[in-house]
C-alpha cells in the first residue's frame, strides 16, 4: 500500500497532509507515529468517566495532531467536541448529538488506526 492509498482508505486528505509534511517519507514516518499518540485514548477515557477537563484537553490535542496529518474529518469531529467542552463555552449540542459525535469519532479513529496498522505492516 502506498501512502496515498492509505489516505484514500482512511478518508484523510493526502493533499492537505502534503502541505505540512512535504515528502512521502516524512508523511509515512509521522502517520505511523499516530499509532502511539495518546490523545484519542485520553479523550475516550475522559468520556467514559465524564471528566470534562479531560475531554477538552484530549479533543483539543487530537484536533491539532489530526490537522497536522491531514486527517481532516477526525480533526473536525475533535474540534466540535473541544468547543463543546472548552472552559467557559456554552453547551450547544443536545446529549444525543454529542453521543453521536463520540460514536462517529470512535469509529473513525478505529478505522484510521487499523488502516495505518495495515500500512505499517507492509513497510
Amino acid at each position, binding site marked *: 500500500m502506498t501512502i496515498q492509498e492509505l489516505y484514500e482508505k482512511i478518508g484523510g486528505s493526502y493533499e*492537505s497532509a502534503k*502541505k*505540512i*509534511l*512535504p515528502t512521502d517519507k*516524512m508523511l509515512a514516518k*509521522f502517520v505511523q*507515529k*499516530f499509532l*502511539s*499518540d495518546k*490523545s484519542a485514548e485520553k479523550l475516550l477515557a475522559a468520556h467514559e468517566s465524564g471528566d470534562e477537563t479531560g475531554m*477538552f*484537553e484530549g479533543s*483539543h*490535542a487530537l*484536533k*491539532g*495532531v489530526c*490537522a*497536522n496529518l*491531514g486527517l481532516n474529518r477526525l480533526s473536525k469531529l475533535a*474540534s466540535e467536541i*473541544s*468547543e463543546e467542552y*472548552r472552559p*467557559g463555552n456554552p453547551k450547544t449540542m443536545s446529549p444525543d448529538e454529542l453521543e453521536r459525535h463520540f460514536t462517529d469519532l470512535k469509529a473513525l479513529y478505529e478505522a484510521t488506526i487499523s488502516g495505518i496498522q495495515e500500512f505499517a505492516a507492509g513497510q
Partner: protein
Amino acid sequence: MKRKMEGFTERHTVLVVEDNDMNREILCDLLEDDFNVLQAENGVVGLLTLEEHGGDIAMVLLDVYMPVCDGFTFLERKQESGRFDSVPVIVMTASDSVDDEIRCLKLGATDFITKPYNIEVMKNRMKSLIRLQESAAMLNRLELDDLTRLYSKEFFFHNASIVLQSNPDGRYDIVCCDVENFRTMNERYGREQCDSFLHGLAAWLPQVLPGMIVGGRIGADVFAFLTEHQEQDWTDILKNAHFRMNPDQKPMQFSIKYGVAQDIDHEGSVSSSCDRATLALRQIKGRFNTHVAVYDEEMRRMQLREHQLVEFAEPAIENREFQIYYQPKHSLESDTTGGAEALVRWIHPQLGFISPGMFIPLFEKNGFITKLDFYIWEEVCRELRKLLDEGIPAVPISINVSRMDFEALDLAEKIASLADKYELDHSLLHIELTESIAGDNPELIASTLERLHENGFIIELDDFGSGYSSLTSLNTLTLDVLKLDMSIIRHAAATSDYSILRYAVLLADGMRLKTVAEGVETADQVAALKVLGCDYIQGYYYSKPLPGPEFEKYIAARCA
C-alpha cells in the same frame, strides 16, 4: 545577555514548547533545516530551558494547552521574571479562539500561528520577527559611549546598582566630574579638539580615582564614577590630580570640577546619588579656585531651595512667564516645513532664564507638570488657531505629554476637547511621549494612546535609541512616528557608521512608522539621513526653536 550580531544569515536557536510528542516532532523536523531547535514538553521545562540557554534563544514557539504548565502560565512567568523580554514568543493555537489569542497578547506574546502549520509562512514569519528583534538589539549597542569608551548613562546606572545590590555591606562613593563651560570650549576650540580632550580625560579619570569600580558618561561633559568609599577627604585626594592634555594637541584652557556623594545609601537609586554629587558640583561652578565639592548638609538645604522653584511655579503660569518655542521639522520628501515641536522656556523676573532641565524634573516629581503641560497645549492650540485665522499654512505641532498626565487626567478626552475648543483638525496636534513612560502602568498608557489615535491625533515616540530601547513599547503602544534620539545621530556622525541609524529606520519602516531625526546639525547628516529614508529632520541645521512670532514668519516664508 548580548546577542551576537553577525548579519542575518546566522543560524538561530528556537525553543519549541509543546506537550504533544507528535506535534513537537513534526515541528522540529520541519524547522531543523533552518534553525537549531530545542524542545520542551511543557511550560516548566520551557522556562528551565530558557534559563539555561538564556541569550542563545532567539525565539520561542509555544503551545497553549499543556498539562503541568500551560502556555498562559509560561507567558505569565516569563513576563514576571522580565529577564527574557527580548525573546519573542509565537503562540501556536489549534483553535481560532480569539479569547485565547487576546489573553496571550496581553501576556506579551508576539504573534500567532494556527495549526495545521503552513511551514513556509511560519518560517518566514519567524525570520522576520527575529530580524526585527535584532534590529532593536542593535540599538542597544549604545551601551558604551563611543567617544569616551565609558558606559552610557543608563548602563552606568544599571551596572553601578548591580554592584550595590550584590554588596549590601559595602561602602561606596560617587564622584561626578564636569568640564566647566564645555559649550563655550566647543565654540572656541571646535568640536574635534574638544572631543579629543574628552576622550583623553575619560581615559585619565579612572586611573586617578582611588577604588574606581565603574564609570559612565552621564551628560555631554559629565562623567560619573562609582568608587570604594574613601576615608581620606576627597578634596585632598583630588588636590594633586591634574589632568594634562596630550602634548600633540593645541593647548586649551579648561577647568574640571568634581562633586562627591560619600558613603551612598544602598536604598536610594544610583541616579539620586549622582544627583547629589552633581548638586555639590553645581555649587562650585564658576568658582575659580575650588575644584571639589562634597555633598553635605548645606547642600541638602540647597535642595530645599529647589523647592522654591516649585513654589514660584503656580504664579508663573498666571504671569505668563512660561513661553512656548517652536522648533520646525523639515520634511525631506516635500522639502518644506512639515511640522514643529513645542518646547517650553521659563523666564522668571528675578531668577532670569531657568533651564527646562532644572524645572521639568522638579515638576514631574511634584505633579505640577500636568498643569504646565495643559497650559502649553492650550498655548499651542491658540497659536495654531492664529495661524489658520491669519491664512498662514498651519503645520502639525507636537506637544509633549508626561507620565503624570496619563494618570492625572483623562488625557484623550482633555486633548480632544481642547482641540475642539479651538476648532482644530485633530491631525494638527501630534502627541509626543518618551519611551520611558511606557514602563509604568502600560495598560493605561496603551489604552489612552489608542483612544487618542482613534480620535485622529498622531502619536510620536520620542528619544528612541537613547539608553535601553525595547520592542515592547513598539509592540504595545499605538504609534505613528518614531523620533530617533540625538545620540544615534551623533554616534553615526562621529563614527561615520550609520548602521544603527539604518536599522532604526528599517525597524520603523517595518512597523509602518514615520521617522524624525532629532538634533541634526550638518548638511552631511541631512544627506545621509535622506539616503537612509528618514522622513523628517529636526535640528539646528534647519532652525533653532523659535518664539511664536518668529515661527509664524518662518513658516509663512517656507510654506508660501
